[in-house]
């Protein structure tokens, strides 16, 4: 899902970069407000985890590869704003040092995986879990949160790819950037994430949230209110 340089037209990557900068500025303010000193190590670990989990390329036999992102679990445990900052750090390092994702596409990639995805994940988790502390329900909600948020982030990425032939072609009708339109990009990216990569994101999200629920339930951002209510 790391869009390389040359696949997006400036008309696409400039607005997405502007959106990324704006939202990240807000995220930094929110994180500053929410941050608790004892959780700082977790913030570092979140960025490292996102970086490392994206290296686990999974194959569609005979086809393409893809991977989980880690945004969902970070959004559930540390909150979506923290996920925005942590996953952006990982994505920017991947682009700058390892050439994974383009420089011109940093804004787009961060928008898709570090803004859109964690917020979708967070609200899906809240929707299904509704502050419950029931282990099975938390596990199930976490799985769905990871699964759906990765699939939707992939579809958003596919839309960014797929609109290129509509907005940027040369006089002969040849594509200037991504040559595949929406009718190809959306099914291609949706299906691979629905059948494999989304499931991987769902499973790691559910397993890690379960681990935290058992060992450190108090820090789980998205069910903190549940914990507070229980104590009343």
């Amino acid at each position, binding site marked *: 899902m790391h869009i390389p340089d040359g696949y997006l037209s400036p008309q696409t990557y400039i607005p997405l970069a502007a959106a990324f900068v704006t939202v990240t500025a807000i995220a930094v303010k929110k994180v500053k407000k929410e941050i608790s000193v004892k959780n700082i190590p977790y913030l570092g670990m979140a960025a490292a985890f996102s970086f490392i989990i994206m290296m686990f390329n999974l194959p569609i036999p005979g086809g393409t590869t893809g991977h989980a992102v880690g945004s969902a679990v970070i959004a559930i445990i540390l909150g979506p704003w923290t996920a925005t900052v942590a996953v952006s750090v990982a994505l920017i390092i991947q682009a700058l040092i390892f050439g*994974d994702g383009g420089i011109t596409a940093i804004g787009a990639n961060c928008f898709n995986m570090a803004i859109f995805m964690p917020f979708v994940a967070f609200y899906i988790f809240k929707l299904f879990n509704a502050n419950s502390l029931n282990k099975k329900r938390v596990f199930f909600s976490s799985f769905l949160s990871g699964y759906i948020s990765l699939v939707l982030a992939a579809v958003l990425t596919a839309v960014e790819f797929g609109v290129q032939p509509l907005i940027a072609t040369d006089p002969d009708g040849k594509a200037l950037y991504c040559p595949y339109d929406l009718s190809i990009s959306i099914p291609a990216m949706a299906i691979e994430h629905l059948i494999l990569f989304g499931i991987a994101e769902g499973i790691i999200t559910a397993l890690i949230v379960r681990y935290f629920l058992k060992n450190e339930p108090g820090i789980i951002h998205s069910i903190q209110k549940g914990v507070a209510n229980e104590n009343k």
Partner: protein
Amino acid sequence: MKINKTQKRILIILIVLCLLTPIGILLPVFFNAGDAWGEWSAETMKDLIGYIPEGLMKYSDTWKAPVPDYTVNSEDASVVHQSGYYIVSGIMGASISYIVMLLFSKLIAKNGK
């Protein structure tokens, strides 16, 4: 900085994950899977559609990453060597991500109080 028991455990899990990263290159080789969708090189694109889109040609070399594709030598055919490069890249990338995020968090936590 003090870290608690859960934090220590997670750090260990992260280190183990770094060492397991070669799975991310071995599985695709084993199952004969190629690039991620939409992440083809300009040359691969030429094979796919018969030409290299002009913008792709112009922008694809915008940035020369110091360790492109998590390897120091993409020509090296040895799976063992590639696994080694991948692990080192993983440790390097995860450590830098950890340190950057940690310093950043400390900085904003300090300014906020």
